[in-house]
């Protein structure tokens, strides 16, 4: 009822807005942040936008991890009526740019000095050709390993720094009757585990060649075989009933002591914190074994809009998204860290501070890499083809050599 009213009111407002020459900044924002913490985070942006004299038209489309929103976006773009800003990320931004529908917000970006505020590889995602076309909201780190602190202490286990150490710890835990690895058998979770293994075993340079550049020699190398071998080993460390389990249920297994470790992005931290657990005391966070940093950056892509009020709204929105206050408040709600590097992190928890420090270090050393499993590195058909192989291997008795052969064929077939 209230939604209907809001819709009617906003439609009326936008009609009024187009009748007048300039009725203040307007923005229609398509996103799928509809669950508790996320909705609260978006509300912060809405409020700031209103305080700066703008009129925000909310267009939340929940469902399917953004699939439903993308379907809505396609319909809007095909009918020539794109929203002002859309929650998009990674190469999908460039894909929409190739369709010729993204706006140029270089004016705001230059005025605000985004070039110096963002790590270079993240700034790269926000640019289309030579111009800026999107604004980053946050940085999720994907290659986290979470652990139950008391289980580790009871069994005399340190956080592993190599996959061999992890395997040794897992054997020990299994002997003690504890599930070593909490995992949910959904394709994207298998892919998340796989990319952290590739990063740990092959190192950042190999990850870049194999899962970002899709270099054939890297894809069929012995290092890739070793990565699949490790996946097979990990398969022995999950419980028999992992198929189809949601990631937050796996997190709960770590929380209540059924399982020792979970490999998952830092949205898992939200689950721990919501249950009143304290980082460093009840649960431990560390990067997955090996070097490097895999990021998953949420951002808003700006679509071409007509009318001064809409363009003004777009510029204001871009400016606010990258504003210090929003970046801080939003990310404290969501468990990620700010994309801009000059936000004070005193109020954040120790895991977030570690994440920010690692991001700065890996950006300097060139090991700040996009997550393939979360759609930051590859186009949809390609990352999907890799995930198909990874999940087929993990959920069957397929040999590593067969998996590598299948991987090469699948990547070639996806172009």
């Amino acid at each position: 009822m209230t939604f209907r009213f809001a819709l009617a009111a906003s439609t009326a407002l936008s009609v009024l807005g187009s009748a007048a020459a300039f009725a203040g900044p307007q923005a229609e924002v398509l996103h799928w942040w509809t669950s508790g913490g996320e909705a609260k985070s978006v509300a912060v942006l809405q409020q700031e936008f209103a305080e700066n004299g703008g009129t925000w038209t909310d267009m939340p489309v929940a469902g399917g991890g953004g699939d439903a929103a993308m379907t809505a976006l396609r319909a809007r773009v095909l009918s020539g009526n794109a929203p002002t800003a859309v929650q998009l990320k990674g190469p999908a931004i460039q894909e929409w740019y190739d369709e010729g529908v993204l706006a140029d917000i270089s004016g705001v970006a230059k005025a605000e000095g985004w070039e110096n505020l963002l790590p270079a590889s993240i700034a790269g995602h926000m640019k289309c050709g030579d111009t800026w076309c999107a604004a980053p909201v946050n940085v999720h780190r994907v290659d986290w390993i979470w652990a139950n602190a008391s289980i580790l202490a009871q069994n005399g286990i340190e956080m592993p720094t190599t996959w061999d150490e992890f395997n040794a710890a897992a054997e020990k835990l299994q002997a003690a009757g504890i599930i070593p690895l909490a995992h949910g058998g959904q394709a994207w979770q298998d892919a998340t585990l796989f990319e952290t293994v590739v990063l740990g075993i092959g190192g950042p340079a190999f990850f870049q060649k194999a899962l970002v550049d899709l270099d054939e020699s890297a894809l069929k190398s012995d290092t890739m075989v070793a990565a699949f071998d490790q996946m097979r080993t990990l398969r022995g460390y999950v419980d028999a009933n992992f198929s189809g389990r949601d990631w937050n249920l796996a997190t709960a297994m770590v929380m209540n002591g059924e399982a020792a470790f979970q490999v998952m992005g830092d949205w898992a931290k939200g689950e721990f914190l919501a249950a009143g657990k304290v980082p460093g005391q009840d649960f431990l966070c560390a990067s997955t074994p090996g070097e490097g940093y895999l990021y998953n950056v949420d951002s808003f892509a700006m679509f071409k809009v007509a009318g001064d009020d809409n363009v003004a709204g777009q510029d204001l929105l871009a400016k606010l998204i990258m504003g210090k206050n929003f970046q801080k408040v939003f990310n404290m709600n969501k468990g990620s860290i700010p994309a801009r590097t000059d936000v004070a992190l005193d109020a954040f928890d120790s895991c977030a501070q570690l994440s920010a420090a690692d991001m700065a270090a890996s950006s300097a050393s060139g090991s700040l890499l996009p997550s393939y499993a979360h759609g930051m590195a590859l186009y949809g058909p390609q990352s999907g083809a890799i995930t198909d192989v990874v999940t087929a291997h993990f959920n069957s008795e397929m040999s590593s050599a067969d998996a590598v052969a299948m991987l090469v064929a699948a990547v070639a077939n996806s172009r």
Partner: protein
Amino acid sequence: MTRWLEHHLPKAVLAPSFLAVLVFVYGFIGWTAWVSLTRSKLMPRYEIDGFGQFVRLFASPRWDTAFGNLFIFGLLFVVISLVLGLLLAILLDQRIRVEGVIRTIYLYPMALSLIVTGTAWKWVLNPGLGLEAVVRGWGFENFRFDWLVNSDMAIYTVVIAGVWQASGFVMALFLAGLRSVDQEIIRAAEVDGIPTYRIYSAIIIPSMAPIFMSAFIVLTHLAIKSFDLVIALTGGGPGYATDLPATYMYAMAFSRGDIGQAAASAMVMMAVVFAIVVPYLYSELRPRHD
């Protein structure tokens, strides 16, 4: 004027729905066929590029699994539902008491949405939660029933849930068929001392051929467009072991931004439907000589 109306009214009344079917069914079939011949990714593009999408489709191991599953699932689902439905119908046909109540109980699953069926069976078949855990709780520690999480067996759990849903409906169809057989003939056979099983196998079942045909067509198209049952029961997993063509098409079109590939898989699905329905229509529509 009235005569003119009399003559043209049926056409005028039928025209809107005819037009709607023409555009929204056949028009979009044509559009999908066109798109399946292009290199469309995120958005449809209209430059014809040949049969590349079909080559990609049949080179994809995931499509192989999905297409193979269609035949495993389709065959088992249709055959088991028909056999079970017929059996139930024959048993119910024995003039038993409280037939109405039993009939409702068996028919009831059809009233549920496939999402509900899938979710309920997901819990029943979950080894840590459902059947396996219960039987183990009774003391049979070695009992194993983990088809749902076993990638070689998971497709059969979809068959189980599908059969559970559809066999009651098939039973109702057959029961109506059994009751419509001329009682005079049956009584005559009984008088002649023919055993009951022969009455069924030689008289009643052969006379129900048209009902078999309708049940077969209804079940087959249910099998081919099965989507929600798989999504709710297994989500296509473990891995992609329970993918069906419909879930493959959805993944390509809506999750991966590979519209050309989705269109190609849709065309193959349509070809399968045509391969089944066209002979049926042909046999139904040909002039009868009796």
